[in-house]
């Protein structure tokens, strides 16, 4: 089992990857560090764990999907 990491919109273009598979780590912030190779984190990045909004210090578990994206602009 592992962690699926996804990036969307401008953040995907900035980081240069749309998704990654990483080994389990304790928090969403750790997943960012591993998946982006410690890229600087823009202040307005949002995070979701298993399709629900979460925080960077939220714990993650094997099999989770962690997504990072910029402020939303729908509607």
């Amino acid at each position, binding site marked *: 089992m592992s962690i699926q990491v996804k990036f*969307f*919109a*401008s953040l995907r273009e900035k980081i240069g990857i749309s998704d990654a598979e990483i080994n389990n780590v304790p928090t969403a912030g750790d997943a960012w560090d591993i998946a982006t190779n410690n890229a600087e984190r823009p202040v307005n990045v949002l995070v*979701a764990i298993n*399709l629900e909004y979460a925080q960077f210090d939220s714990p993650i578990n094997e099999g989770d999907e962690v997504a990072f*994206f910029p402020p*939303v*602009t*729908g*509607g």
Partner: protein
Amino acid sequence: MTTHIAEVAFNPWQEIIGHQQQSGLDKQFGATATFIGSMRDFNDNTDVSHMVLEHYPEMTQRYLDKLEAEANQRWDLLDTLIIHRVGAINPADPIVLIACWSAHRRAALDACSWLIEELKHHAPFWKKETRQDGDRWVEQNTDGF
């Protein structure tokens, strides 16, 4: 109660009529409140020729369903319909439709207003505009006032 992510252009007026006819609302409703958001051909005083709406498909559908369920808990609604476009969009194309049916006007009006604000602030959609000087991600929604 229906939510739908539309990958092709839709006619919101036909959607409202079609939903109303199929919903079994019969003659119970006394109020229908609707919000239709369409693409402008300008933003920040600059012409915009078209845009692409990206989303996080699984989370978007889940979030719209969650919003709809919460609206139906908070207000005494008879039915709701939410449709949101993704993909390539041209000026004047509808982007979002929210329709709320209730027995009396206040519930439909308040729920419709709440739904569009919640959707705009939290549903994971992102707009990328094409302008004369190139493509640009919209960084934040206007305050709408």
